[in-house]
């Protein structure tokens, strides 16, 4: 029955922010307990228009403009989620999420655990993250590693419209708290076909975007774009890259990462966040212990520098570029 249903469905061309909007709309249609809250999300439809039209469709009771307080948004979401609602909260930019940390770390992530299953916290916090759109100060950070360190908090990062749709549907359906980080540089980059079906994507699996046996390029979020471009360039030189979109930092699909390292023996990890203590370090450590005998070259990490995200005049110099990824892959090949 399900496959017949899928056959009848047409893939619709959507950009990433439109896919988010579609996923929210569909989740709200399917489940009355899904409510949205955040700053400027109702009448304005969100500063990136992720919630455009939803207030008109579902009303102010389910699409709530909150007072301007991120800590409040997170705390209210915890309260709602503890009593059976499924709040999907928007933090306008990841640079403002820190006021919500206490709620996420001390409450959302541990409510089920500390009540031994009596209460749970099925919330989703959405936040646009990452640089490259010439935004004001504090609007371009990538601090996903802070959150991936928190037991009990799932961290999910889509890198295409289809994965944005499928992963957000899964995140909303998930009974655990999810931080859903949206690479805002990709919001309007391109429209790609998105199948609007009911099959959610897994929240604990990497996606293999391209298969190759020479080198593994591992990344997530907006950097998938540069990583795929690097794979194209390497292919011109006859180097075939496995491209892995990690997509869920917590829980981490170590098996897929170990398998790709086992296959190629050469690994380049790419992320926009700073180097030291970045999530690439966790992946590198995993491979250093669990794929050591297969490695043919030191693990390379192509990342941002250990500096605050520069204001936009210098953000391009900060962000990992295709050339750096290609050069790292070639160092692996030449080792």
């Amino acid at each position, binding site marked *: 029955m399900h496959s017949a249903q899928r056959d009848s469905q047409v893939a619709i061309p959507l950009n990433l922010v439109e896919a988010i909007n579609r996923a929210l709309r569909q989740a709200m249609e399917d489940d009355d307990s899904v*409510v949205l809250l955040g700053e400027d999300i109702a009448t304005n439809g969100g500063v990136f228009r992720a919630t455009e039209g939803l207030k008109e469709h579902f009303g102010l*009771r*389910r699409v*709530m403009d*909150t*007072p301007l*307080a991120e*800590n*409040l948004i*997170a*705390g*209210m*979401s*915890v*309260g*709602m*989620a*503890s*009593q*059976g*609602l499924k*709040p999907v909260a928007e933090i306008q930019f990841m640079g403002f999420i820190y006021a919500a940390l*206490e*709620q996420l770390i*001390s*409450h959302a992530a*541990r409510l*089920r*655990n*500390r*009540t*031994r*299953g*009596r*209460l*749970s916290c099925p919330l989703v916090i959405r936040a646009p993250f990452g640089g490259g759109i010439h935004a004001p100060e504090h609007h371009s950070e990538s601090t996903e590693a802070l959150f991936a360190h928190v*037991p*009990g908090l799932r961290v999910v990062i889509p890198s295409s419209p289809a994965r944005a749709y499928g992963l957000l549907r899964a995140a909303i359906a998930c*009974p*655990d708290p999810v931080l859903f980080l949206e690479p805002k540089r990709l919001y309007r980059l391109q429209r790609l076909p998105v199948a609007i079906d009911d099959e959610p994507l897994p929240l*604990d699996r990497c996606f293999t975007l391209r298969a190759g046996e020479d080198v593994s390029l591992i990344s997530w979020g907006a950097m998938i774009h540069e990583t795929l471009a690097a794979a194209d360039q390497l292919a011109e030189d006859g180097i075939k890259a496995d491209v892995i979109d990690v997509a869920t930092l917590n*829980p*981490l*699909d*170590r*098996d897929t990462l170990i398998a790709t390292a086992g296959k190629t023996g050469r690994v380049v990890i790419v992320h926009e966040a700073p180097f030291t203590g970045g999530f690439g370090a966790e992946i590198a450590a995993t491979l250093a212990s669990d794929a050591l005998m297969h490695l043919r070259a030191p693990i390379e990490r192509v990342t941002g520098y250990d500096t605050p995200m520069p204001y936009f005049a210098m953000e391009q110099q900060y962000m990992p570029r295709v050339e750096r990824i290609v050069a790292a892959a070639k160092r692996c090949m030449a080792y």
Partner: protein
Amino acid sequence: MFSSAPYTMHERLPSLDSNSDWSRLIQAYQAMALIRCFDKKAVNLQRTGQLGTYASCLGAEAITVGAGLSLENHDYFVPYYRDHATQYLRGVPLYQILQYWGGDERGNAFPAQTPAVRDLPNCVPIASQLTQAAGIATKAKLCHESAAVLATCGDGATSRGDFYESLNVAGVWQLPLVVMVNNNQWAISVPGRLQTASQSIAHKAEAAGIEGIRVDGNDLPAMLDVLDYALDKARHGKGATLVEAVSYRLSDHTTADDASRYRKASELHAAWQREPVARLRQALVDAGHWQADQEKQWQTHCQQEVDKAVQTYLQQPPQVPTDMLDYLYETLPESLQAQRTVLSEHAGGRHA
């Protein structure tokens, strides 16, 4: 019906109206005496190494019992960590309260079929429960429940942004929320005058556009008046209330604290003259509704109940170590299976 001029202290004791609800007042006194007895035992258990750090409710009995009696079953309770009597009156057994303070998360798995089953557990990070209470109040409003949410906190919590953020949204959204501050004059070692320059804590309601009420937190009948009023108002969609219950912390902050380092003995001695349990007992005795033999019987009963709770607490089997992983997610992610195996192999039982 309760009414008072804004921010003036509402008081009822020492004498009671002849048309008081005597059975409710007696029930309140009995609960206050029970929790006083429990509290003393809990401190002793900590002193003898049988309980972890414990936050005493000595001096807060009228507040925590008043809350328990004013809440209806379908209301929600969002506590800080000094409302043991409210939890008890909502259906949490005394042994489970000890289990929580004994370092065991099972103490937060409140029993099904009791009003407590939906209540939030104790909240240790100061004031962070208040935004959650606002979220629960939003849920109650969205779902057209005629339920109120009662959140409690201490005077120190009123300095945190969470406190204002919660009152603020409760004002804007007309939430069915009552925030009750136990102003016991001390936030660990910092006295109220160093916490705020506001004329009173109740005055802080003004900025949020909600009603603020001061009440004598050592006066159980006054507490019932105010909480009945505020919770009823919330249930009927008439908005949020800030209640400042003025009491005095007769204990140390917790068993890990030594208040003699920062608090004068004379101040403590003066505060004992107004303590809530003796005040209510005296008023009931004066009105002829509580006799010496009843008192004796009830004290014996309290001791028996507390002893039973201690026995039950001490007899609980240890937790299974893998519980720390098994309750983290609804389903343990595959990636944690290896850690779970290590844990179950290396943490065979309770550490001696």
